[in-house]
């Protein structure tokens, strides 16, 4: 269903457990051991950060909205859960995903414009032949079984903003945490409303006027603060919760009264926090070189 997440193809076909997702990827690598051995790649999170940067660069040039870029990133993640990355030209996949997502999000761009911007951004890795992008579109849609309607956490965030009286700062911090989660596997592991609540929780724990999210030294503290808040949900559910004094408490009480899976929120929190820790070590140059090496060596840019 287009409006109902519970009946959506996203929930039925594109939600995995961590083990399932790892298995899928392992199988892809096992199918092509020689290539995998010849062209080592950085860990997937680094690749995701790099892809995210490239999507953002192209998106900025084209004037693509945030939601369409989020859709593009989700398409890329779905696609690479089915196709080994070393068999593709990631730059072509990125541009095609943006092109397709723009159409899906009702702000289409002409294929020729997308190709010419791709040429400008990645001149050594991008063909000026529009049919390459058109062909890649077939590839992506086919691997996604034409399931292109996606549900994002942004809508839940917007609808809960007043429920928890989030300030503009808190809401925009939650919003950027949602933006960041597209660089993790969370979109394939958790429901959008779970992600949204995780983002709200973190925005309240972090209190935007105090700490920055990027501060790796505080990541442990953030994790334990979030953990503490969530574990108090259990006691609230057993009726020990008092009147809410803080927004965080209000969220905890609200969660206690809901049927939302607290474990899932805990998992999401850990995933995003460990991502923020890893993000510190991201080396763009190394990542780019490793990608560019297999693209050139395998002639994937032709």
């Amino acid at each position, binding site marked *: *269903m*287009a*409006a*109902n997440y519970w*009946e*959506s*193809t996203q929930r039925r076909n594109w939600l995995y457990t961590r083990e399932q997702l790892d298995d899928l990827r392992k199988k892809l690598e096992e*199918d*092509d*051991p*020689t*290539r995998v051995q010849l062209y080592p790649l950085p860990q997937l999170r680094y690749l995701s950060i790099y892809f995210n940067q490239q999507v953002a660069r192209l998106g900025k040039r084209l004037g693509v*909205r945030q*939601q*369409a870029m989020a859709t593009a990133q989700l398409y890329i993640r779905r696609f690479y859960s089915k196709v080994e990355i070393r*068999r*593709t*030209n990631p730059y072509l996949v990125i541009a095609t995903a943006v*092109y*397709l997502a723009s*159409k*899906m*999000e*009702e*702000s*289409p761009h002409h*294929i020729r414009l997308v190709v010419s911007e791709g040429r400008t951004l990645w001149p050594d890795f991008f063909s000026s032949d*529009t*049919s*390459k*992008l*058109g*062909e*890649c*579109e*077939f*590839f992506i*849609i*086919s691997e996604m*079984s*034409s*399931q*292109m*309607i996606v549900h994002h956490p942004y*809508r839940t965030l917007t609808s809960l903003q007043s429920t928890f009286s989030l300030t503009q700062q808190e809401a925009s911090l939650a919003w950027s945490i949602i933006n960041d989660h597209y660089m993790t596997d969370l979109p394939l592991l958790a429901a959008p409303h779970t992600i949204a609540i995780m983002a709200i929780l973190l925005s309240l724990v972090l209190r935007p006027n105090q700490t920055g999210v990027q501060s790796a030294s505080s990541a442990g503290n953030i994790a334990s603060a979030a953990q503490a808040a969530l574990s108090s949900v259990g006691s609230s559910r057993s009726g020990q919760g008092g009147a809410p004094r803080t927004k965080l408490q209000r969220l905890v009480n609200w969660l206690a009264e809901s049927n939302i899976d607290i474990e899932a929120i805990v998992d999401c929190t850990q995933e995003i926090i460990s991502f923020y820790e890893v993000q510190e070590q991201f080396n763009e140059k190394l990542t780019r070189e490793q990608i560019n090496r297999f693209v050139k*060596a*395998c*002639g*994937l840019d*032709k």
Partner: protein
Amino acid sequence: MSLASNPPSSGGAPSSASQSRQTLKRSVQQAFDDPSDRGTGPIGYQSKVRVIDRYKVIGFISSGTYGRVYKAVGRHGQPGEFAIKKFKPDKEGEQIQYTGISQSAIREMALCSELSHMNVIRLCEIILEDKCIFMVFEYAEHDLLQIIHHHTQPTRHPIPPATVKSIMFQLLNGCQYLHANWVLHRDLKPANIMVTSGGEVKVGDLGLARLFNKPLHSLFSGDKVVVTIWYRAPELLLGSRHYTPAIDTWAIGCIFAELLSLRPIFKGEEAKMDSKKTVPFQRNQMQKIVEIMGLPRKEQWPNLVNMPEYAQLQTLSGSSHNKNGGSSLEKWYYSTINSHSATSVPSSNASLGLEGYKLLSGLLEYDPERRLTTQQALQHPFFSTGDKVSANCFEGMKMEYPHRRVSQDDNDIRTSSLPGTKRSGLPDDSRPVKRMKE
């Protein structure tokens, strides 16, 4: 049906250009099958399944601007029959090229993959092969255009009231599901409403449908004109930029009227777009509506005065039947449902009675905000009074409608891409073809 007659693929390795297509195919296939053989260079896109391996084409059904529709049966015991919609690939010279899939095809593929309801046509699968898109749907033997047409031959005889009631209920039910899922159909008309041989109504052709929850752009900006003109809601004719599900319910009202009278109720002539591509005021169509419904008044439609084309309304003449400009829909309704009773047809539509009129006028309400929603219409007393509504619109019928005409002229789903005839079978009653280029 020979593969050799296909245009050569342009997606494969350049060195293979001189080889036959089949050899090329096999070599590319091997590249997929044998990991050790994955040498250098990108692999051209190849579909994992091939449409002619999965389906046997029985004949050609129709064609439109989008491409062609074929009737087919499964080769691997898939139950039932299928309608395969093939989207026409763009051609550059003789060579078919990947040119990017049109937004309307993308919408239809995405929406049909997501939707699932007994009164919405069911998508079985989509095959992307050789630069073409094949959407495989369940087959429906009839459509409302064909059924209405049948009742005008050789002379006019009404569609039985139980059939009308069942069709309306199922049509509303399918649209209610679409609206509940934030999908606007935007092109409801008899030709797009399918009916299976078991009498199940299925809303079809979601080529213009789209989601209406929180669009990034206003629904107006993308495609300026929607809905075939005879079924176009007055707010659209008056230039409204705010699309709501009410545009679909107006079209459903028009279809209801057409099921009763066997003619389009508001059969206007479309004003063509001028050279500056500005959308003209559809004076003739609006006039046809006003002739039956009277001029809209701001007392019944408070937002009327804010319509961009409001000033144009003053230039239209009111109902000829009614001097004070009021609606003559009631008169139209009773003269329609009673017109056949004089010829002593037992299944006269007179039995649809007062509730039928109330439902019709609720669907053809000028003010989109007061117009019945599909949800309200389903709960209308029209459906709860009299005989129980059947899930099979043909229940109790002695006669059988003629089957969809399937032609043998063009059975090769893989090659032909140039639309020839408009539609095999029915003359289309010179219906306007509405499909905006995006």
